[in-house]
């Protein structure tokens, strides 16, 4: 069963980059499904954790390059918040490679496709995310 990837893309830069990857007819795996948000700072910690709980195997958040944010400081807040989330998930024993934050501008269609390719390969290497589901189950404690 191939891995499921959710990508949160900010409307002004990375979502436009994804569109550009489309107009340039580039290619990246179909497991990647994109959710549009106004800015990377709209991505709430809950959305990412909810995706894992509902069966996603990898979550990637994309935003504008620092300094290019349409809302001037949105991506700085996103970076601060997600760095803390990623370090906590790693601390709790979840595979750090299942989450990723990438800055992609509206002109970087090729980078978007390449980033998605690399991320899908990286997550596929880890396989399905069993750890998120078994963290609280007794049975889980035995076989880990």
């Amino acid at each position, binding site marked *: 069963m191939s891995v499921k990837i959710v990508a949160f893309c900010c409307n002004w830069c990375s979502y436009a980059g994804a569109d550009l990857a489309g107009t340039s007819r580039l290619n990246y795996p179909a497991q990647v499904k994109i959710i549009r948000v106004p800015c990377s700072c709209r991505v709430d910690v*809950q959305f990412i*954790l909810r995706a894992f709980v509902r069966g996603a195997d990898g979550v990637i958040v994309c935003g504008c390059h620092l300094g290019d944010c349409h809302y001037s400081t949105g991506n700085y807040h996103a970076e601060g918040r997600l760095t803390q989330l990623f370090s906590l998930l*790693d601390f*709790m*024993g979840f595979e750090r490679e299942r989450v990723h934050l990438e800055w992609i501008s509206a002109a970087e269609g090729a980078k978007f496709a390449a980033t998605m390719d690399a991320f899908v390969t990286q997550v596929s290497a880890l396989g399905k995310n069993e750890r998120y589901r078994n963290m*609280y189950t007794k049975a889980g*404690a035995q076989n880990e």
Partner: protein
Amino acid sequence: MNEQEKMRTRAKELHAAGIIKQVLAWEAGAFPSYPAPAFFTKPNAFEKIVYNEFCTANLSKYVINITEKTLIFLRPCDAHSFAQLVKENQVKRENTYVIAVGCEGCVQVDEGEARDLLESCRTCTKTDYPLFDEEINTQNNPRESTNKAARFAEVTRLDSEENTARYAFWQAHFSQCIRCNACRNICPTCHCKECVMDSDHPLDGQFYHAIRALHQDGRCTDCGQCSRVCPRGIPVHLLNRKLIYTSNK
């Protein structure tokens, strides 16, 4: 430990002078080693104020949204939590009269017997009181030098281990969790009117601990109450301390 006497006399004096309406402190609980936070409104009750190394409860959360002018005794950890609550408009500073009180650390209690210092007191690095109106022998807080290293020792130890070892460590703990929410209810900076975990679109319990820690990111004053009250002894404070550790870096 003559703070107790000074606290009682000061409470009476301030009440008599009409500066305060009530006092928030500890009173003797069912067992001598379990004093409980309590409000004292009548002056003759002030004699019941207790202060010893068993007073482990952090008083700051009880003053959220009080309207009466209250005298409150704060130790360094309580004082930091209190300051955070003032900063977040949860308590009006003018409704409180704060006496900073010295603290040599509280003790863990096993079968009524005093054991060694609480984990949070062993690793406590706070000797300052962000805001106070008076002080009662605050000079004997011995903490500073010894605990600086101890504070993040456990965090760095876990960090150095393999990712899977950390997973096993937390899985062993979290599989014990009975979601009694004590850690949420005792935490001073956890003061939402309606918690996200109970509201109409509850995030599944699996990430309760991650969400609780992340909500205190940048606000947690490392007072250690969350782990102290956990009936299953899960070291949830380590999650908050890890966030402090990363944001310090």
